[in-house]
């Protein structure tokens, strides 16, 4: 029997205004209930590093066709700046049932770019390790100000 790989990705984006956008990319033109939420179909593709043992600030690109609901997503989300994305990768059986293999990643929106056919949403990882050459001091608000959402800390 042929080795078979079936993967469905669930895209849950919350804009800074608190609007949720839920899409999945496997079940064509179907709305799928997953983990208690309804995901409609969108032909998106996620590219980039999705998991890293080092936890560096990886970049994820999610590509959509340039169609109306993606533009609405951009308009409502201030161009995908500081939106939050929960990207769940769910492996499926040959019968398209869910397996126990699930990977969930969390990202922060950093912007978007548009072409005549494609909308590219860019994200970076939400939780990062502190870089190795960071000073060995206790991290306080007095040193770095309010904690940022990424790994870019600046001593004050």
């Amino acid at each position, binding site marked *: 029997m042929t*080795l*078979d790989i079936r993967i469905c990705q669930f895209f849950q984006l919350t804009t800074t205004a608190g609007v949720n956008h839920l899409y999945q990319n*496997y079940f064509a033109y179907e709305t799928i209930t997953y983990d208690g939420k309804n995901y409609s179909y969108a032909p998106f593709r996620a590219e980039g590093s999705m998991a890293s043992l080092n936890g560096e600030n990886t970049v994820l690109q999610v590509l959509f066709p340039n169609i109306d609901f993606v533009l609405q997503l951009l308009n409502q989300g201030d161009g995908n700046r500081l939106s939050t994305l929960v990207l769940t990768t769910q492996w499926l059986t040959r019968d398209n049932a869910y397996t126990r293999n699930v990977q969930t990643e969390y990202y922060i929106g950093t912007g978007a770019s548009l072409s005549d056919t494609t909308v590219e949403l860019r994200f970076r990882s939400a939780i990062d390790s502190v870089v190795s050459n960071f000073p060995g001091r206790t991290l306080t608000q007095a040193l770095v100000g309010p904690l940022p959402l990424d790994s870019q800390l600046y001593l004050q």
Partner: protein
Amino acid sequence: MAIFPSYAPTKRQFNLGTYPQKSYRSLAGVVVKRTFGNRPTGATLNLDFENIADDKVVAILNHYRSQTAVNQRFKVTDTTMAGLDSNLTALADGSADNLRWEYSQPPAVESIRPGVSRVQVQLLGEIRDPGSDD
């Protein structure tokens, strides 16, 4: 009009759609298939209409123009599938896989004699979009 003109073809040839897959062959020869969706797509249906009158040719050409202008897919009627039993019709006309048809290229018209032509139509079956297809 979302339905293909209801004329019986003189020749018909179809292929079922395929699932969206990519195959990878390992060095040991084992094939791994990655499936990207749960529906087959890309069925083909080729129709020949031999020696039909100009009004039917016009109907087919106008159907092509109107459907491609708005990128709306369509169904074919039982007349197009004449001669097949109901189970085979469901497979051949795409309804079993919830497919709708679009033109893969403009109809080819060959003049036979005054007022009579031969038309060749090539259709492509794609997954029905509930938002815009019938």
